[in-house]
């Protein structure tokens, strides 16, 4: 059995992907019932990971994997300790319920198969993220969750709001992903390890590194964007454009916790420094307060929950960075509690929306008779979220207050932050769970009735777990909370808080929280109006800023493109030759490598001088040609002069080829040019002529100098000697040039022939295009 374990874990990690592949086919066959079958994939993975619980609870860690590119020290490897196992269980467990829920929620939707495939794809990515051992795997899965999140938020891609939200989430989390990559490269460079399992047990070295702060900021860039920390929070509420199962799963229970996971994972090696203990609580605290304040203002069930999720993430970041084992324990409890109650409440919100046609809390009421099971689940989840005794949320809140209340001024400050945040979350929790269900029934767009089992199963199970986890807190702590906290502290930690209240400061703070929360709930309308007024005074937030950013980016790209590519060939050619001239002239001048003054060659033969002169005359005549005939004839003159020069300097083969090619060129030119118009005079104004002539002269001088310099150097005859020595002996040919072409470099010649052939085809095609068009007109 033990030998099979790595293979089984590997399969468990890929089961969601398998489910994603099958989803479209199964949905086509079984309609919405396919979800029940597809839920087996995460369920099997969940059960497999449950098998690790005793081992992990005993304080061990499970690693495994397969070598992938050993020469680069890369492997597909996983690392299961208390932290990653808890995450894996949350992902697969809640994932199972979400898949079932999606079946009911998306019933009858034409793209249900696509939706389930995306959800399962995300699940596989998220599962891979939390169990990854190697940095590279972590990064790849991290980006994969961003991509699948993009697909899910933009699922309803015919609405602009969904497209915008999807793009926004992708840009923000994608940029964070790049930041994380840079951070991981830093970590690797500082420590020399590429595996988390080795990194977390590292004895110092990282914190003392001069690059510690850079690495920390880059990692935080990844974690804060993913976990929607202020000021990167704005994408999360917009992500509520996604169908509700997505909001429940990605944007409350799992993906947004990836950033928190990363921080907790790195706490043993990066934590306990001043930077860590200032940055994390500071940004976490701001996120907590702004999230809860914004949540109070909303009337949309999903948006209320989205902002409290943001606040909860802030609270988790604050606790992780607070710098005591106690705070980490509190964070563990709160993380689990939050995943349970927030997932449940989101699904409740979705069910209410699905059954009544609205999720505006002011237009809902009295649903408890019509939807008793949903109401029960909502109530249980809200009690946990509000942190009332007997529920897991209560344990978390007690622990939070116990950890934060340490008596010093800093602690008092953060205690007050937590108090305000928790009180407001209490109010929002009950606004979501009670307002739609109690009071007089309100007319809704659809006639309300209880949803099918697939819609209430998920919230009911999660809400019940919130109760059971607290009642049997011993088991929960032993298998989940304690191993998790031990992993984050890299030290054995035992959590033993129970649901029996102890008299003391934490309990007093809890009571104040509940009283304050109840007060806000009672006067929710006033609080909402107050917040709306406050926000109006604050002006536009980062969300508007994103719109500006995107449109400015497009405008900027257009401006750059139009500057670089104005669409005028003249400019492209001018830039090319100016750069060519600079490349040729600047380095020799800067490095003092100009050629010396060459000696005047003695013994120039008359025929050589004559053909030199003819070539020059040909060039000048081409430049000054005022009609077609002169241009063609003078082009021929310089060509033939070059051919004769080849002949005079021992290259008869070249000479013959050049003669042939020049003759052909002149003939073809004469044929074609009679149909072309060559301007009688140069069209360029005098100033332009001067500039162009300068560029041309610079290029010409550059090439002359280059050639003078290169013939100054001694000639390397290695290749020449080779061909001279072997062309007769090996290739049995006396004409060395021909032997090189057809034998030694025969393949090159084949390529050359291919070029000529392709050119011929292209010429033919160009001429035929017109014939075809004329045929069409007829």
């Amino acid at each position, binding site marked *: 059995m033990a030998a099979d374990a790595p293979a089984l874990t590997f399969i468990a990690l890929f089961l969601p992907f398998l489910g994603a592949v099958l989803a479209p086919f199964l949905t086509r066959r079984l309609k919405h019932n396919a979800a029940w079958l597809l839920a087996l994939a995460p369920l099997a993975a969940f059960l497999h990971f449950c098998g690790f619980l005793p081992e992990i609870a005993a304080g061990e860690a499970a690693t495994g994997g397969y070598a992938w590119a050993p020469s680069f020290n890369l492997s597909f490897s996983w690392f299961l300790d208390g932290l990653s196992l808890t995450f894996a269980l949350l992902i697969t467990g809640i994932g199972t319920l979400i898949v079932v829920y999606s079946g009911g929620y998306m019933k009858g939707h034409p793209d249900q198969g696509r939706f389930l495939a995306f959800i399962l794809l995300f699940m596989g990515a998220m599962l891979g993220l939390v169990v990854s051992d190697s940095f590279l795997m972590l990064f790849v899965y991290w980006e994969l969750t961003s991509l699948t999140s993009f697909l899910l938020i933009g699922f309803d891609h015919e609405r602009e709001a969904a497209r915008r939200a999807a793009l926004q989430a992708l840009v923000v989390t994608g940029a964070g992903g790049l930041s994380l990559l840079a951070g991981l490269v830093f970590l690797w460079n500082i420590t020399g390890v590429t595996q988390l399992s080795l990194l977390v047990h590292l004895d110092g070295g990282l914190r003392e590194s001069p690059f510690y702060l850079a690495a920390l900021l880059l990692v935080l860039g990844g974690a804060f964007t993913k976990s929607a920390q202020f000021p990167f929070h704005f994408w999360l509420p917009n992500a509520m454009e996604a169908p509700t199962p997505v909001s429940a799963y990605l944007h409350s229970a799992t993906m947004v916790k990836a950033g928190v996971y990363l921080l907790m994972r790195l706490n043993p090696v990066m934590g306990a420094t001043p930077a860590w203990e200032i940055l994390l609580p500071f940004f976490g605290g701001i996120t907590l307060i702004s999230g809860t304040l914004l949540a109070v203002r909303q009337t949309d069930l999903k948006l209320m929950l989205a902002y409290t999720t943001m606040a909860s993430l802030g609270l988790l970041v604050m606790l992780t960075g607070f710098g005591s084992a106690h705070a980490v324990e509190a964070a563990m409890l709160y993380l689990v509690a939050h995943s349970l109650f927030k997932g449940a409440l989101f699904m409740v919100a979705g069910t209410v929306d699905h059954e009544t046609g609205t999720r505006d809390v002011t237009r809902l009421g009295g649903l408890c008779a019509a939807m008793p099971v949903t109401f029960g689940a909502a109530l249980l989840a809200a009690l946990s979220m509000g942190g009332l005794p007997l529920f897991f949320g209560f344990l978390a809140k007690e622990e939070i207050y116990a950890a934060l209340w340490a008596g010093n001024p800093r602690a008092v400050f953060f205690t007050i932050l937590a108090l305000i945040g928790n009180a407001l979350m209490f109010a929002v929790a009950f606004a979501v769970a009670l307002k739609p269900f109690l009071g007089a029934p309100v007319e809704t767009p659809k006639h309300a009735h209880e949803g099918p089992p697939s819609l209430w199963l998920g919230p009911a199970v999660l809400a019940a777990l919130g109760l059971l986890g607290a009642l049997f807190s011993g088991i929960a702590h032993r298998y989940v909370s304690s191993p998790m906290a031990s992993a984050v502290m890299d030290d054995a930690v035992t959590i033993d808080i129970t649901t029996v209240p102890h008299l003391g400061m934490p309990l007093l703070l809890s009571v104040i929280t509940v009283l304050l929360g109840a007060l806000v709930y009672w006067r929710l309308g006033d609080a909402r109006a107050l917040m709306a007024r406050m926000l109006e005074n604050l002006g536009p937030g980062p969300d508007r800023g994103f719109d500006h950013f995107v449109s400015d980016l497009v405008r900027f790209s257009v401006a750059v493109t139009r500057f670089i590519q104005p669409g005028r060939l003249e400019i492209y050619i001018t830039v090319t030759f100016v750069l060519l001239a600079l490349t040729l002239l600047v380095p020799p001048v800067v490095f003092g490598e100009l050629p010396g003054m060459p000696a005047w060659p003695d013994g120039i033969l008359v025929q050589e001088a004559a053909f030199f002169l003819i070539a020059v005359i040909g060039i000048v005549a081409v430049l000054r040609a005022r009609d077609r005939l002169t241009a063609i004839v003078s082009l021929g003159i310089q060509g033939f002069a070059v051919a004769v020069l080849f002949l005079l300097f*021992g290259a008869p083969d070249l000479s013959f080829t050049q003669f042939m090619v020049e003759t052909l060129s002149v003939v073809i030119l004469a044929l074609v040019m009679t149909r072309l118009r060559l301007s009688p005079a140069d069209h360029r104004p005098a100033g332009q002529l001067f500039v162009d002539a300068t560029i041309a002269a610079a290029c010409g001088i550059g090439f002359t100098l280059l050639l003078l310099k290169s013939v100054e150097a001694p000639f390397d005859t290695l290749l020449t000697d080779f061909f001279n020595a072997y062309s007769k002996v090996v290739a049995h040919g006396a004409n060395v040039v021909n032997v090189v072409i057809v034998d030694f470099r025969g393949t090159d010649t084949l390529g050359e022939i291919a070029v000529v052939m392709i050119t011929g085809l292209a010429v033919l095609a160009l001429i035929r295009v017109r014939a075809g068009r004329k045929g069409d007109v007829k």
Partner: protein
Amino acid sequence: MEPLFAVLIGLFFAAAVYLMLSKHTVRILLGIVLLGNGVNLTLFTAGRLTREVPPIIPAGMDALPAGAANPLPQALILTAIVISFSFFAFLLVLTYRAYQELGTDDTDEMRLAEPRDEQLPPMGY
């Protein structure tokens, strides 16, 4: 002789660049022909010049005697002449067809691919 050739080659390049900087496709074409010759002469000169003796192994000998021309640049140039001729032929036909279709040989007027008043891309999502 090499320095003299270097000057002639400079002249070839200067004339070619000057013609290619023009807006008229026919002049650009003439420039490209000159450029091809300039490049071939550069290769030829860089391989050093030898008067009159072609690189052909005399009958009864196994290797080329000293004093013959360098065969390597010649082999390269032979290929280059043919390729530049193909290039020239293709460009000539292209120029001709462009002139027929667009009624102009001024490259500034040829704006089919990059129109002058191109619309801004969509600013939304």
